[in-house]
């Protein structure tokens, strides 16, 4: 396989995905045959009410859970056959997680939090620090590196979490309701960062139930009862994200 082919390979390839919890009559069918392909550079919002299976899909995409049946390829790797140790490597190298509750490690500075995935990847202290500082700079928190999570606002904590997700340069940024715990201003900041990351070619999958958040994505996928019912493209995969373009247009007009 050549480098060119690698670039054209979809980041996410899910086919006939079924996830069932429990057995027999009490079985819960969280996913009932989902097919989803996410190209490199795409920005996808997965929407749905609670119980629609979007959290299950998110866990499967994030390699935190495995499918009952069906195929899942992440960055060309079939993850269903991987052992726990290989899965942790995949999570470390290929996925950057952003959670609704930020999930920073308490009593640990922003810098150390961002360095953590690199520490688990076995990267040396000097290199680790350099990359973590760069990631924090990217989210606009270069002046907050020595603050602990309880000294940061919600928006700042989520930006640290974004920096932590970015720092390993993963193939996929996976955000689960990233703005669910944030006020309007912080929501705007974080979505602005996502727009910029998308513009720079990052592949982003965001789980949300807010239309306003979803409107930033290039593509909106709606789940109901474990099945995809609509799949709407708002902007081209290779182009800029829709709200970023309109923001730029607005800026240009004024």
């Amino acid at each position, binding site marked *: 396989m050549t480098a060119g082919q690698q670039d054209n390979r979809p980041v996410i390839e899910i086919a006939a995905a079924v996830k069932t919890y429990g057995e027999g009559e009490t079985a819960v069918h969280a996913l009932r045959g989902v097919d989803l392909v996410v190209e490199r550079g795409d920005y996808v919002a997965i929407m749905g009410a609670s119980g629609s299976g979007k959290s299950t899909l998110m*866990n499967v995409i*994030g390699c*935190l*859970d495995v499918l009952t049946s069906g195929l899942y390829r992440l960055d060309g790797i079939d993850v269903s056959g991987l052992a*726990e*140790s290989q899965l*942790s*490597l*995949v*999570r*470390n*190298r290929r996925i950057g*997680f952003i*959670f609704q509750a930020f*999930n*920073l*490690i*308490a*009593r*640990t500075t922003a810098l150390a939090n961002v360095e*953590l*995935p690199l*520490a*688990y*990847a*076995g990267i040396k202290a000097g290199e680790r620090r350099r990359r973590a500082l760069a990631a924090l700079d990217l989210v606009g928190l270069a002046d907050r590196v020595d603050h602990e999570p309880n000294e940061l606002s919600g928006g700042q904590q989520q930006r640290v979490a974004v920096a*932590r997700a970015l720092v*390993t340069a993963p193939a996929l940024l996976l955000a689960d309701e990233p703005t669910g715990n944030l006020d309007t201003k912080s929501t705007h900041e974080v979505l602005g960062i996502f727009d910029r990351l998308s513009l720079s070619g990052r592949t982003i999958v965001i789980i949300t139930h807010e239309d306003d958040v979803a409107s930033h994505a290039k593509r909106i996928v709606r789940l109901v009862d474990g099945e995809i019912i609509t799949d709407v493209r708002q902007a081209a995969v290779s182009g800029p994200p829709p709200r970023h373009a309109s923001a730029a247009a607005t800026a240009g007009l004024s």
Partner: protein
Amino acid sequence: MSPFEVMRFALVGLGANKLRSALTTLGILIGVGSVILLVAVGNGSSKAIQANIDKLGTNMLTVSHSGGGFGRNRSANAAATTKDLTVADAQALVDPYAAPDVKSASPVASTTENAVYAGVSTSIPAFIGTYPSYFEATNNPVSSGTYFTNADVTSGRKVIVLGQTVVTNLFGDIDPIDKQITVNGTPFTVIGVLKAKGSTGFTDADNTAIAPLTTVQQAFTGYGSLSQVIVEANNAATINQAQAEVTTILDTRHKITNPANADFRILNQASLLTASTSTSKTFTVLLGAVAAISLLVGGIGITNIMLVTVTERTREIGIRKAIGAPRGAILGQFLVEATLLSLIGGALGVLGGYVGSHFTIVGVKPVIVPSSIALAFGVSVVIGLFFGGYPANRAASLRPIDALRYE
């Protein structure tokens, strides 16, 4: 993930809950400290017993009459069936052919008498009449003055060697040598003072007086049965042969065919030593066992606190796993945390035990057994690994999805 990183995470984890870590450490500290200290106390008391027995003389056999009362108090009835222990018996034991391992045999007639000097009176519970060889056999040298001689015994001279306590009671600070004391109406000249021995259990070994056998027999006990015969073996190694020889000679002289009916019994200092040593060993093992239990309890404390820590940090573990922490890193972090707790506790416990052993505890000067330090310390580390293993394994096996959902 370098071991250094794992260590750093563990230290941060411990530092997050300083009081809890300190209290857990205390459990191990007490465990290790008490193992070291209590074993040292047991060892110290065993050493003390050994030293006391050494003072009595280890190559000494005490032959005493049995099957009746002692000496002159014995009933006439018993005399019909058993023979007295006599001076002739004692003399028969010193026989280079029949008893080559016997160095000397000192007949002993003992009584309790009151001594008076210049109006001061004291009771001497162990007033002993014997031969000069008694001094050497019982490891009883004089510190000043001299011993009486065989000639003194033969002529029944009224000379006496006093124990330190008697000297203090009668003379105070006055030099007792060549002074005249009166014992139950009989005047004695003090010719020597025994070296102090200290007390052995309940009896004061220094509250004694030793005079020639013939003098004591004539003045107090009469010429009947002896209290004891003190036999000195050539050395400690031949004491058991000496005992066999003494038994054979006395069996013959007393016409005893069945050893169960013997009218004498022999107390062997070496066997006494063995018995006391094994007693104090049991004592040490008991103390050590109690301490080991407290070490075990400390270990369970580590498991308990690590389980609490793991539960409390379930979410953190989930985050770490979600961002790619391998199983080994989580396992290592919690295992190192537990081991550090017990290691620090162990080190402080060794220190505590060492310091504590410099104090006298219930009259015993503890003597540290070096192997107990190594053992207690080693066991504390093993306890950390063993008791920390279960919680650490539980943390490492958490599924990230469950751990993240945990509130």
